[in-house]
């Protein structure tokens, strides 16, 4: 469904991403892991069209994009939505959650009633009461705000949702709940997830594929089922080892 071949990002002569390739099928989850500075957020920004990028081939089936050389713009595509790291930064503090979520349906010509209904349904999907429609981001907890962000992505019924560290702003118990809800919704709606994270534990439980970035290059790329047992590079082995020693992988394998 999504295929990226040899993606490069170069800014002012510095090569921030080099030959990053991956494929993602319908309702699959790809976790991109790596330490900070490895190029994870650059990859996000390249996909958002916020930094100039080029690649050999870019194929995005739902939107009928099949391009080479320059990265096509994914801004405004109804087939893609983003969920960001800090829910409070991702929500306009002076806009109610409902209106923020409704913005995701911008340009579809919905009537007000239909819009409200769609938003309330999305709130239900992420286990938020419809009363949250009129709340402001400052009036809800971080977990609730991140759920609202998830609802904003889901309400548009995209084929692909890209997550940037979706859980790192939340505390452990909330993390688990949101992660479970995320995963259940992926199966229900058959949406593909591309999750950028440094949380190996999350990848170990939910990912279908794992892609390891190191200094802007792909250090490892394989299915989750094999990744944790036979990492392909010493770097991914050390990442797994580090996670294991912190107990992050306990009970997940």
């Amino acid at each position, binding site marked *: 469904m999504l295929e990226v071949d040899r993606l490069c990002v170069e800014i002012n002569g510095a090569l921030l991403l080099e030959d990053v390739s991956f494929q993602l099928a319908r309702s699959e989850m790809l976790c991109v892991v790596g330490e900070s500075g490895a190029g994870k957020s650059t990859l996000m920004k390249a996909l958002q069209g916020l930094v100039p990028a080029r690649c050999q081939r870019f194929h995005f089936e739902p939107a009928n994009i099949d391009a080479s050389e320059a990265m096509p713009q994914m801004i405004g595509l109804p087939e893609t939505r983003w969920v960001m790291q800090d829910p409070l930064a991702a929500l306009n503090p*002076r806009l109610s959650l409902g209106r923020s979520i409704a*913005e995701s349906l911008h340009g579809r010509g919905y009537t007000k009633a239909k819009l409200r209904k769609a938003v309330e349904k999305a709130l239900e999907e992420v286990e938020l009461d419809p009363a949250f429609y009129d709340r402001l981001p400052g009036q809800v907890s971080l977990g609730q705000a991140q759920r609202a962000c998830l609802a904003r992505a889901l309400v548009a019924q995209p084929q692909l949702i890209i997550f940037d560290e979706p859980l790192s702003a939340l505390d452990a118990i909330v993390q688990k709940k949101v992660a479970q809800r995320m995963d259940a919704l992926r199966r229900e709606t058959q949406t593909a997830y591309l999750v950028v994270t440094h949380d190996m534990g999350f990848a170990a439980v939910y990912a279908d594929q794992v892609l390891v970035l190191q200094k802007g290059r792909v250090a490892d790329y394989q299915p989750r089922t094999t990744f944790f047992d036979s990492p392909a590079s010493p770097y991914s082995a050390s990442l797994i080892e580090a996670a294991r020693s912190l107990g992050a992988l306990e009970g997940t394998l």
Partner: protein
Amino acid sequence: MSLAIPIMSHASPIRSFFVWIGGLTLILIVLLGAGLFLTPYGPAEADFLNRLATPSVSHWFGTDHLGRDIATRLLFGTFWSLGLSLMIATIGLVIGTVIGLIAALSGRGGDYALMRLTDSFFAFPELIAAVTVAGLFGPSTLNLVIALSVVSWMKFTRLARSLAVALSECDFVIQARLNGLNRWQILWRHLLPNVIPSLLVLWTNSWSRTILAVSGLSFLGFGVQPPQAEWGAMLLDGKPYMQSAPHVMIFPGIAVLISVLLINLAGDLLRDLLADPR
């Protein structure tokens, strides 16, 4: 990372500020109206037999060199001193915000040109520029308003632009762009509501500073001209008599002082109410 604590609504501080200010303005207008209605004197009503009278029951703040009732003139002066400066501050707010937002939304070239223009205007000290313009084009109320308006908008431009630029890099604006909103929709939905509160704080600040500027320029002879009852012009009128009748210069000054103090306090209150919505 601050935890979001369910507190009062974030939209309400602005509303409550306006209720507060609106109520205060209403009370002020009622008091002024009552004063104007109750006072037996007119602002230009001279009584030559009762010149420079000290404060008494019939003339609460005394009379000036033409025997005009100072209290009555101060009441009428409210419209000049507070009204004119409110008008000038509001002109600055509107022009400045529009230019600042245009700069923030236009490309690099347009932004650079507009901001260097703003810098150029900003370089001229307010009072000196106003003295120059009002002086060269002839001292009058209209020229005073023009002169002070010309030097009042740049603060708003800088603030509006810098806030809008900072907000444009915020995640929620990026989200809006990814959702396909165009820049004007982003401006209207996301930038303006988040920029206006700070601009309002600056606006009250600008209002009080303009009161000082309007009365100061009028006192120096470059603004509202006597016999109009503007407070600075009243001081100018009373200056030759201050030795024998100090009350002619005490009360207009106190009027300016109290107005500026109250508006500054309102500005502080507003700033505290609006402190970071997150």
